[in-house]
């Protein structure tokens, strides 16, 4: 790799050839603020926050898109630079609602912190503010265009990472805004509710549709029995909301905290992840054995499901008919558990805690319930759970760890792996191998399925069959794969795991704001550590799951399973 030298703020520094000025400066530990920069994507140069002074250039230079050059002389904090950055922030503030005190993103808002950091203390520019209605049509995401700074990150994430393009810029000049096709509600758009835009948004313009108040109301209601389930990725990320290092697993503390604020039972969604493996593994085995539609595709990620229904309805038969772990839990809580405890299902409020905004949409799907009630009543994101803890004044870090409740508290670490890309694959391979051959894998760790790569491939020998499997995360990657298959390629694949968000649920749209790639990596490693140290690493060895089959469900793919644990998909006709 060629290096070059350049000067920044009077210091001689080295940089990699081909790096941008921004990369070079940040490598050298010089901080440069940005609003629109997304690591790994082409710079758009929209926010102009990263401008620096370069010797010989007439205007200020956007460091995000300008390549560093040998001998370049840069000033990253000259008065002219600081004045420009401050003016830009002031201009944004001049068109921003002054309601930080009421804003869900206060304290985690890039605009707010930049204004603080740059020392904006005076209101120099005033004038008309753009006023547009909030879009509260989506069950997952609330858009508040007034708080939008038009950095375009959501647009690029939606288009370039997710391949969805539900939103884009509309209009010109100061009247431009980000909106859906024909400026309709998000609910009738092609949005798949993944919430990646929410995580990318520097301000409060995009936030999850909050169910915190609903849950508080339920918890305060003496007539109802409130049950929680928490997804595998939540326990390894919520710690960040309380100032702990990314990757800390606070599973037990979280369970304790949930009990403190009034949840009558706390279940682990990883339990139903194990259950999913039983059903889905059996389904795959069945399809392979009976010439069913292949490749089979996982169905636990609700964004992905809506994506297929919207953009690739022809692939619906490829989707596993299994409900997601959340919905399986929802279904058995209001049936098996209710019966076991002698509870009226109508009196049960089932709350799930998910790293995901699309889960809110999934829980609300009409087919996900019985007797005119939804199986899962409210979905809280990781962020909302943290808020719930703060509102109720419960600090998990001060508690003693507690175990989840029976009968859905036991889980294998395979179920826990569902939280990261490749995790479903890894769990499935472990169990399918057993289901098809009756033998366990020598080493349950499937290295090829691990890591943050957007697309991973593995071939596993299962008896006589060479099983081809692909793991993709992000819908951009999924789209690429589907196009290949559509074009007649990839006949070698039997099984595809798709997670909507890049990296899987650990990087979900409901996760703590502001996580860098390192933090996501740490969350992933935490899952792997849990798996390494777990006494129970195989879904089909989960005794509680087996008991559930024995006592209630019968067998995988059986009659009860069919009714409770499997679903169907619909084609969606939206403006896409």
């Amino acid at each position: 790799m060629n290096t070059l030298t350049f000067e920044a703020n009077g210091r001689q520094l080295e940089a990699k050839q081909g790096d941008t000025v921004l990369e070079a400066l940040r490598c050298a530990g010089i901080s440069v603020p940005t609003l629109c920069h997304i690591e790994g994507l082409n710079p758009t140069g929209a926010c102009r926050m990263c401008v620096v002074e370069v010797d010989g250039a007439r205007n200020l230079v956007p460091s995000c898109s300008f390549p560093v050059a040998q001998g370049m002389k840069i000033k990253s904090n000259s008065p002219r630079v600081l004045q420009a950055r401050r003016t830009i922030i002031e201009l944004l503030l001049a068109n921003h609602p002054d309601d930080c005190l009421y804003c869900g993103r206060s304290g985690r808002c890039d605009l707010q912190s930049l204004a603080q950091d740059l020392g904006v203390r005076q209101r120099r520019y005033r004038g008309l503010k753009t006023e547009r209605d909030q879009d509260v049509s989506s069950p997952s995401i609330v858009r508040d265009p007034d708080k939008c700074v038009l950095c375009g990150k959501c647009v690029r994430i939606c288009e370039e990472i997710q391949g969805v393009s539900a939103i884009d810029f509309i209009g010109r000049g100061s009247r431009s805004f980000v909106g859906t096709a024909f400026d309709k509600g998000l609910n009738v758009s092609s949005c798949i509710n993944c919430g990646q835009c929410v995580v990318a948004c520097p301000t409060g313009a995009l936030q999850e549709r909050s169910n915190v108040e609903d849950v508080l109301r339920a918890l305060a209601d003496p007539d109802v029995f409130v049950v929680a389930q928490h997804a595998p990725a939540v326990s390894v990320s919520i710690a960040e909301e309380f100032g702990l290092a990314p990757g800390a697993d606070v599973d037990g503390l979280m369970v304790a905290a949930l009990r403190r604020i009034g949840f009558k039972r706390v279940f682990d969604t990883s339990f139903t992840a194990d259950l999913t493996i039983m059903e889905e593994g059996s389904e795959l085995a069945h399809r392979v054995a009976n010439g069913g539609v292949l490749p089979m595709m996982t169905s636990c990620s609700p964004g992905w499901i809506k994506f297929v229904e919207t953009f690739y309805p022809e692939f619906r038969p490829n989707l596993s008919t299994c409900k997601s772990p959340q919905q399986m839990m929802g279904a058995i809580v209001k049936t098996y558990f209710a019966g076991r405890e002698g509870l009226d299902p109508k009196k049960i409020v089932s709350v799930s805690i998910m790293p995901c905004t699309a889960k809110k949409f999934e829980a609300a799907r009409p087919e996900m319930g019985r007797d005119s009630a939804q199986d899962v009543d409210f979905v809280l994101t990781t962020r909302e759970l943290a808020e719930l803890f703060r509102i109720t004044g419960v600090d998990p870090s001060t508690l003693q760890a507690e175990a989840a409740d029976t009968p859905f508290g036991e889980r294998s670490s395979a179920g826990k792996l569902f939280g990261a890309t490749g995790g479903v694959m890894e769990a499935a391979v472990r169990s399918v191998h057993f289901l098809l051959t009756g033998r366990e894998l020598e080493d349950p760790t499937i290295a090829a399925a691990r890591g943050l790569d957007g697309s991973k491939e593995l071939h596993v020998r299962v008896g006589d069959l060479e099983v081809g499997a692909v793991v993709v995360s992000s819908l951009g990657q999924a789209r690429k794969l589907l196009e290949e298959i559509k074009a007649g390629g990839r006949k070698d694949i039997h099984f595809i795991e798709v997670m909507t968000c890049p990296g899987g649920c650990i990087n979900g749209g409901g996760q703590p704001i502001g996580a860098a790639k390192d933090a996501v990596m740490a969350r992933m490693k935490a899952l792997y550590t849990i798996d390494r140290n777990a006494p129970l690493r195989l879904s089909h060895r989960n005794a509680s799951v087996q008991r559930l089959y024995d006592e209630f469900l019968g067998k995988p793919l059986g009659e009860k399973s069919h009714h409770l644990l499997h679903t169907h998909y619909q084609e969606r006709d939206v403006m896409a």
Partner: protein
Amino acid sequence: MNRSEIEGNPHLILEGMIVGAYAIGASKAVIYCRAEYPLAIAQLTRGIAQAKERGLLGDDILGSGFSLDIVIKQGAGAFVCGEETALMHSIEGKRGMPTPRPPFPAQSGVFGMPSNINNVETWANVPLIINRGADWFAGIGSEKSKGTKVFSLVGCVNNTGLVEVPFGTSLRTIIEDIGGGTPRGRKFKAAQMGGPSGGCIPAAYIDTPVDYESVQSLGAIVGSGGLVVMDDSTCMVDLAKYFMEFIQSESCGKCIPCREGTRRMKEILDTLTRPRRKEHDIDALLRMQGLMHLKDLAETIKSTALCGLGQTAPNPVLSTLRFFRDEYEAHLYERRCPAGSCKELVGAPCQNGCPVGTEVWRYVAHVGRGEYADAYRVIRDANPFPSACARVCHHPCERSCRAGASGSGEPIAIRTLKRFVVDQVAPTAYRPKIRPSGPHSSTIAVVGGGPAGLTAAHCLSLLGHKVTVFEREAKPGGMLVGAIPAYRLPRERLEAEIASLLNENMEIKLNAALGRDFTVDGLLAEGYKAVYLAIGSHQSKMLDLPNEDAHGILPGISFLKAYNLHGDHLAKGRVGVIGGGNSAMDAARVAFRQDGVENVTMYYRRTRDEMPAYAEEIEAGLAEGISIQELVAPVAVNSKDGRLTGMRFVRNRLSEPDASGRRKPEPIPGSEFEVELDTLIVAISEGPEMAQLEGLSLTKWGTLAANPESFLTSRKGVFAGGDVTTGPSTVIGAIAAGKQAAVMIDRFVTGKLLKIVPKVKLPSVFIEPAGDLEDESTAQPAARVTVPHLPVERRTRNFDEVELCVSEAAACGEARRCMRCDLEFTQPV
């Protein structure tokens, strides 16, 4: 511009592109053209088909092995798509938004391919350069800007259209010679070059050679060749506002400085042009703060915006701020739009144009309704000299009248309507309210009984002060009686008008001359609390030639006063008048009416078009038989025995323009000629009589110095106004000075701060329009009323009033021609 090239000669562009593609090895070419130009697209399509037919385009062109395909991409007209990266994204079918460079188009352009992107005009030049050679092309234009440039010449210029000139051609050539100058005799003010991203070049730089460097050094750009000519009715703040409005709605909205910044700049400009009445919340604060931030903001946008559009977006503001800061300040501090263009500060332009703020629209409306007494009251409320002004005012109201501002329309004949009103209503019909005397009352001396002095005295008397006017001559009226001849202003009219101004608080002492009969010190010692000096400019400037004291050479004002005040006929035989102003014209016409005068010739150093005298006066004088010699200057006095025998003149030509943009006359060597004369009247200019102003500070032009806001001279309690401070000026200007001085003197004697906050005067009284309202779309344009004059044969040798009054029907018709700009501001009650 490009459209005309495409529509007129698409082959030229195609040829240029084929040559260019061959040179750089391109296999695909795209012409990006607005879909709104269907003819251009049709022509290009035809051209491409023809080129393909003849094997000049397509595969293996002329057997060369080189292939090129040219396609047309129709874009929806977006200003930002003129920016190359935005244009390329538009070609790709994406939203036309720029992306940062690098990568440059040559590295990664359309669809990620290396691309070369050029303007139509550039491509159109290629075949010519290839055919004739680079040297030929480089031979045209200026040192650094080669070739020619097509400009779209529009705005306040007689010949609009596309103009192709070599680089280096002066702006003056383009505007004056090619464009035929500004219409309706208005003054060229500035040229906006380079469209909304460009800047303005003020009149002082009209001789700038138009090339990239010179234009850029003035903060404008050549750009696509937009050249908007603006005259003095264009407000530069309004212009900046217009462009900011355009830019902020055409900004693509991508980068923050351009999207948010241009909008705030526009808002700041809005606050400057909005009257306080319409301000709400903290607008006034914003206005003051805004101007402070305007420049900062502009600089930030310029240095941080993503693309060329944003980086040049503040140019209209920066360049108008650079050259016309005074206009910004007038809007900001005085709440006044000097060009009379910002509607909300101007109200009705006629009222705004009147130095005394007469509600012109209001009395015109009354005339249209037949309410002449009401009309008179409106006039008289603002102006104590309706009758004089109805005859001799230079009517700036008509100049600002919107009926004459656009198209071929003519302004309302406002002065003619005023004349009609004063002929219907006697001055005595107006009874002003006099504030009763009280503790606030003071005694005030006004020196000079001309329009400024009488107005100040009258206004002060109405405020309850005891005012004494000291007039040197035996008749009051100043220049109105001394200089303006009776055929323009009948004496009985003037006398009646002056008489109507008198009341128990105001007396006039005649034959009382400052310096001779009394002094300022004496007046103050006598107990006058304030003195207003309005002694005018009565000292004619002379030629500064030997022998100019010869008998027969007369200063213009002395000549006029001798006749007007004393009936002395001083002109004899062949009369020459030197000068081109109103005094010269009056002198010429008065001389022509005197017994024993054979002929009268005026000698003027510039051309007739540049004569400061009113056009109608010049017309009337010529009609009566006066001749004018233009472009001549006196060089010697010929005399015999101390008596004038004639003059020696030299012919002038107009030189290159000076810093003010005026072309100075310069003598043509060897063109001297002699003229025999019996009388020479010198009426080139006048100044105050210095001797009377002893002990007071003077300006560098030799006029009396007075604070422009308080009208206070260098001496406490002594105020001044009118011609003594300005030099020879207009009647209405003197009346305005008197009115303003009265306000300040009143504040002075009552112990108030000598400062008033400027107020925007907007029409506030609703007057029902008269007559049938015509449908605007079908109404025929009505011609301006023509004013009847006494036939030449009945007026040349007497002092009967030359200008006659129009008929009632004509007056009503003319009044109803008014566009009633006031209605925009008033509501029916």
